[in-house]
Every structure is written in C-alpha cells, then in structure tokens.
C-alpha cells in the first residue's frame, strides 16, 4: 500500500520513510504543501496520507495542512474516502474538532498527535492495516454500488480517538 508523508520536519519524515519502507509500504515524501500538490496532481491510486498541520519550516506560513486536505478531497477520486491521518503537534484536539465542525467535508480521517507515535506505538501500524483492509471494500463500493452506500462505508472510518473528546 502506498503511504504519502507530507511534513516539513526532515528528522520525522526520514524516520517514517525508513520504518514504513521496511514494512513493505511504498513511501513517497513531500516537505512542503506546494511540492505535495505538484507531486500528487492527477494521482488516482489508493494511498494513505500522513499530513502535518504547520508548514512554517517550508516557508508556507500562510497555509496549513487543512488546505491540502481540502484539495485532496476535491481532486483524488477517493474524495471523502481517502484516508488522511493528520499529524498534530502543538495544537490541542478540541481546536481540530471545532475545525471539523466548520468544514465537515474537508476534515482528515484521523488525528494522530506526534507524541502518540511514542506513547501508542501500535496506533499508526494498526491504522494503516485497517485502511489497507478497507481499500478493497471501498473500491468495490465505488465500482458496484451507489455513492450513498460508499458514504455509509466512510462512516466506519471515523478516527479511533474521536470518542475520547467531546465536542460541544
């Protein structure tokens, strides 16, 4: 399965590249939102996207990971079903959940705080395994069933940690 890592922090992306390649994933890395847009333009294959929020290090202070999230939802054939794991660092979960309420069709599939990569080391591999299993099912839904049913399948892909936080 293809995993696309988009983060301006080289130490993290290189580690993810090495670790995921070892686990036989095809890994593609982008260090800026601009490069990601150019590199992923016209991509139609199934993939899981690991996306950072802040790209100040790439000189993109005026943009956030959400902007690319919306672009991917619009341009990739999987649309809302494209698994996008949002890597969060400094930001608090409730801010993301508020963002999700504002833009329900732009939001990522799951949120993963960077410290969770250390504290819950099985979380990322389990998420990837889960999405890999769902790709076949999603593809089948796209080919054989209605968009409404495909959206019902999307409901099953809610982030695992959503029930931890309550939205007002």
């Amino acid at each position, binding site marked *: 399965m293809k995993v696309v890592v988009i983060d301006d*922090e080289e130490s993290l992306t290189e580690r993810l590249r*090495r670790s995921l390649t070892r686990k036989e994933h095809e890994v593609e890395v982008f260090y800026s939102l601009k490069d990601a847009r150019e590199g992923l333009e016209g991509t139609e294959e199934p993939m899981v996207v690991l996306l950072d929020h802040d790209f100040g290090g790439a000189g993109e202070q005026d943009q956030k990971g959400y902007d690319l999230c919306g672009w991917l939802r619009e341009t990739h054939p999987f649309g809302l079903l494209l698994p996008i794991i949002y890597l969060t660092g400094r930001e608090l979960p409730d801010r993301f959940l508020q963002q999700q309420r504002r833009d329900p069709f732009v939001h990522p599939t799951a949120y993963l705080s960077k*410290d969770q*990569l*250390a504290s819950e080391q099985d979380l990322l591999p389990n998420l990837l395994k889960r999405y890999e299993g769902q790709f076949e099912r999603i593809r089948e839904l796209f080919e054989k069933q209605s968009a409404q049913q495909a959206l019902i399948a999307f409901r099953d892909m809610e982030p695992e940690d959503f029930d931890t936080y309550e939205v007002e």
Partner: protein
Amino acid sequence: MFMIYEKVKYLEGDECLPISQNAEQWKELATLFEDVIHELNQPVANIGIDASDAIYCLDKGDVEGLRESLDSLRLAVQDLGERIGAYKALTQRSRSEETIRVRDIVDDVEKVLRRRADKAKVKLDIQLSDDNQFNRVLSVKGDPFLFRMAIRNLVHNAIEASNDPSIPPDRRHVIIRGIHSPSEDSQTFPHGSVLIYVRDEGPGIPPKIRKRIFERGFTTKQGGRGLGLGLSLVQSVAESCGGKVGMRDVNPGAEFWLQFPAARHRENHERRYDNEGGRYRR
C-alpha cells in the same frame, strides 16, 4: 513556572485574586505549556518511531536494520536531552542572588528558541560587547531564572513578529544586543547597568497602542503583532530584578530594551593587561 510561583503567592496571601483577573495569566501559562509541548513533541515522536522500528527489526532478525534504528534512537534521545536541558535551565526556581554572565543567559535562551527561529526562517544575531571600552564582562546579579524569562519573552515576541507573512526574507532577523552602560544613578545602578536590546524588523507596534503594551491583559494581536506571553510579565520580572523595560521606535520594526543593575563579574579580575592592544583582555 514564574506564573505558577505568582499563583501560589496569591493563594498563600490573605487575599485571592478573582478568577477573571487571573484569566490572562492562565492564558499566558497555557501558551507557555504549548510552547514546551511543541518543542518536545518532535524528538518524542522520533523516539517512538525508532523504538518501534528496532523491535520490528529484532523480530525479523534484521541485525543491520536494528543497528540503524538504534543509532537513530540514540540521536533522538540526545536531541530530547538537549531540549529538556535547555528548559531545565529556564525552570530553576530558586530566588538566588548569583552573579551571572549575560552571555550564559542569552545562550540558554537561544538554545530554547533556536528551532522556532529556524522554522520561521528568522536569523538570530547575538551581539554582546563583553570586550567593551569599560573592560567589563556583561554580568548581572540576581535570579538567573527571572533574567532568562524576561529575555526569552522578548526574543520570542521578536521571532513571532518577524514570522509575519508580509515580512521579506532579508528582514527576517532578530538582533540581541548587550552593552555596558556607566552609572548615571549611583543608587539604582551602583556598578553601572547592563542594557539588552532585542530588535526585529517586523510590522512594528502601532503608535496608538504603544502606551498600553505593558498593561496586564492587553493583547496586541488585532494590531498585527502577537505578544502572547505578555510584556506585563517581562515588566514585572525586570522590576523584581531592580531593572527597567521599555520600547524604542525603530523603522522598520520594534526594539525593546531591558536595563539591569550590572554586577562586577569575577572574571573581570582574571583579565590580563594586553600591552600590545593597550586594553584589558581575557
């Protein structure tokens, strides 16, 4: 840290401040914690990936891969240690009366903020005139924690101001300048004073709000410059160290200054006279 100390002080006293008056303090404290989390998150994530990778290689019997992961893990732990070390220096809370070199304080602040500056593509330019015409190593007497806190806040604000999208790359630098000033007021500054200037070339402080920027609870974010950690905190720190804080109008940007009573540093006595240069040198 300093804020916690203040909070405890309030609670220990006869009178507690109403929650509404403390709201700004808690907001600033939350910003400070976010800052710490942001700094530590990256190496912690790297450690998690490396550790997980090492276990995977071990299970697969991949010795080369295991070595690679452990080497990477060692670097990530070293990075974490360095970051924690820099914060540890900031969080020491003893009310000591040490004689401290300004260069040591500025170095600690730079260690904490370097990554933030790198990320914002802001260059930190440190100019401390230890070898000045008064033959004085820049040193102050007081609590190192408070000095670090005050300087750190000013530098942090300057980096944030320089990080404005409207600021071109050639204006993205923060100058931290330290000089010795001979005594003009023998009571306040018996050994002269140390002046520390922090200058940026950001959007500057709009004239209409300049008088209010040191007020507790006043935020300038709507004015185009975020001073999230609170200049009121810097002012109270400066006063508690027997110093002063102020702002000077520069174009472009803003320049804040801190003035602390100078202390005669022990190293001053260890200098030797350089006959060739005709000056005292270390």
